[in-house]
Every structure is written in C-alpha cells, then in structure tokens.
C-alpha cells in the first residue's frame, strides 16, 4: 500500500524549488561552483511511485528552471534521467524501502545521504554542464566546474533536508 505524505512533498517543493528559482544565479561560489539544490525536490520524491509520473514531474521541474536560465531542455533532460534511476539507485545504495516510501534525512543520516545523493547529483551535473558546454572541450575547467558544483549542491541539499526533516525523530 502506497501512502504518500503530500504535506512533506509540498514542504520539499517550497524549500528546494521556491528558494532556488528567484536566486538561481546568486548561489555561485568563485565563478565555478554552482549551487543547483532544486534537484533535492526530485531526489526526495517518494519511492516506488509509478515512474512515468515521477518523470513527468521531473520534466516540469527541469523546464521551470530552464526557463529561468535560458537553457530550454538541458535541466529538464538531466532531471528526467534522475527520476528514472533514482529508485534503482536507492535499492543499490541504501537497500529496500518497504517500511516507508517517503524518504527524508531521518532515513538517510549522514552516510546514507552521501551514498544516495552524491552520485545522483554528480550524474545530473555531468549532464547539464557537458550539454551546456556543447561537448568535452575545455576538459579540465569543465571537470573542475562539475566536481566543485557537485560538492556545493550536495552540501546545500544535505543542509536543507536536515533542516526540514520531521522533528519527532530527529536525533
């Protein structure tokens, strides 16, 4: 039986998306690290839901970000990819999700967050920066951008998920 906690999804939507969008180009450190923490919304979507629906939600999320950054399709394609692989990756990295399909920081903790989030954020950043760059030209500055941005986005997604995690079970 799938029980989706809709209030939590709305909280995620507000915390990850609505803060990110007006400030899309203001979370940039030293001109190389880009903080795209809006993907937290997609990563924390409930597990085991019909994947087609998840992908459509991810597409719309990505398109919304794209519209603000003049890159139609780039964020959207990366987000759709995340939505496709997210559940598989949860099974591989964390394990089964029978007890609760609504993931939050309380399930992941520090080590789980690192295992679950970092590879997905890295995949997302590899897609958007490579496509935007139009190939692998300028390889080292591109990799520099990808890795530093991944680290930065991870820290932000982690912090936000920690701040909005359900209170009663927080350590």
């Amino acid at each position, binding site marked *: 039986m799938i029980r989706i906690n809709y209030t939590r999804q709305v909280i995620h939507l507000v915390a990850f998306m609505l803060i990110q969008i007006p400030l899309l180009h*203001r979370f*940039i450190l030293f001109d190389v690290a880009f903080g795209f923490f809006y993907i937290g919304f997609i990563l924390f979507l409930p597990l085991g839901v019909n994947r087609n629906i998840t992908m459509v939600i991810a*597409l719309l999320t990505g398109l919304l970000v794209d*519209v603000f*950054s*003049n890159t*139609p399709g780039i964020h959207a*394609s990366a987000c759709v990819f995340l939505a496709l692989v997210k559940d598989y990756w949860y099974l591989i990295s964390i394990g089964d999700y029978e007890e609760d399909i609504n993931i939050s920081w309380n399930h992941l903790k520090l080590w789980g967050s690192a295992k679950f989030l970092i590879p997905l954020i890295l995949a997302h950043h590899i897609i958007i920066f490579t496509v*935007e760059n*139009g190939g692998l030209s300028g390889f080292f500055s591109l990799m520099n951008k990808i890795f530093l941005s991944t680290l930065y986005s991870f820290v932000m997604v982690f912090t936000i998920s920690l701040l909005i995690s359900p209170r009663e079970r927080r350590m």
Partner: protein
Amino acid sequence: MQNLLNFLYRFRTFGFFLVLEGFCAWLIVSYNQRQNAAFLNSSNAAISSISSFTHNTANYLNLLQVNKQLLEENEVLRTQLAIGNRRSYSIDTSLRKYDFIAAEVINNTYQRGQNFFTLDGGQNMGIEPGMGVIASKGVVGKVKSVSQNFATVISVLHRGLLISSNIKSSNTLCTVQWDGVSPYEAEVKYIPRHVSLFEGDSIVTSGYNSVFPPDILIGTVSSFNLNIEDAFYEAKVKLAVDFTSLNYAFVIKSRLKEEKDSLEFITIEGP
C-alpha cells in the same frame, strides 16, 4: 506480434523515458536555431517579472557601484561634448544613422558555458531581435528574443556570437568570438600574419553588418602568438566591458539597416 507487444509493454517506462529525453533534445537543438523563441526563455513576461522583482530587491545592495559607473559615463560624455563644442558643428538629426535605447539589465550570467542577459525593455521600447547591444564602455551582445516588455540578449560571452571587428591601428578586419574560459577575455580570429600586432591594440567593431556602428570598442589585445605554420595569429582580447557588473545597456537601432540589407541582397542575388 504478441511477443512484440509484450516486449513493448515490459519496456514502456524506458520507452517513455526516451520520448521525454527526445523532447528535451528537440528543445535544446531548436532553441539554438530559432531567432525569436520568446516562449521558453527569460523574455517571457511572467518569468521576467519575477527576475525583475529579485533584481530590484538586490539593486539596493550595489547602488554604490551603479553610481560609480554612471559618474564615469558622465565624465566620458562631458569630454565628448566639450570636443564637439570646440569644433562647433551642429548635428542634423535626419542624418543620424543610429538610435540608442537605454535599458536596465535585470538578469545576467557570466559564469556559464553560454551566457545570456535580460533587459527590462521590449517591443514597447522598439527593441527587435538581431539588434546590437552596447554598454558605456563597449560591445556587450546582440538581442535574441523580445516580448512586450523584456528582451533576452546573447552576451559576448556566448560562443555562438561572432562579432565582425577591426584592429583600430591598422584597420585589419578580424572576428571576435568568446572561447568559454574567462569572462574577462575573448579570442580574436583571422588576423593575417603580415599585420604587425602589438599588445594593447584596440579592437573595435567594423560596422560592416549594420548591427553595431563602426568604431565601438570591444577590447584591447592582451596576448598573442604566431606559430610558424599558421596563416593567422592566435590572439586574445581583454574585453572592455566588465560583465561581472553590468547594470545598464544601450540597444542600437540602425535606421538604415533595411535599406542597406536590401541593397546588398539585390547585389548578391541579382535583380
């Protein structure tokens, strides 16, 4: 047949994934080709009003910088005015070839691979796709798409923008294109090897394509290199405009563009 249907059914999620990715790929490709796609970008009215709001909020924080830039610009204009007065000739407005439309930059990027910025003026101010955009210090871009109140501009920091330019000292035609590395520098291409080039040479617009008026500064040569087997120099230009603090820009409306373009079209295509 049954097997085929079973196969399709088993891979329906992956198929749907491919369809969505195909849609994204279509968006990416078509955006780079269409001239005026005002639907899915920052010149869209709803999107721009949000950008405009955040810009206005953030604006108070860099008023100091804006004031400084305006002062500098005033100084330049006053100098020009003084020189003009000394020569004491009157400017006949009917002979003026270009109009300048001032607009505020409300959204700007310079760290990405392909950069755009948004202006808070659109069709209401007479801005049209394809017009050149300059700031007080030099060239900044070319209008990509326009809505009622906003315009999206391809920045000089976009590899798709080639600017026809001149070396001011020797009047040699060359092309400026960004190389995607630093927001302060761009590449100058096609300078033939017989020309003598020096660091600090000014690169200005050529005025051949009626997007930019002639002799608008793009930047100064910062480094160059001539390999023995190359026909052209490898040169870098330090951009005159600091894209990290771009607050105001002027859109250039060429009064004679249509006339010039149609004449050139007739000449090339035949009557």
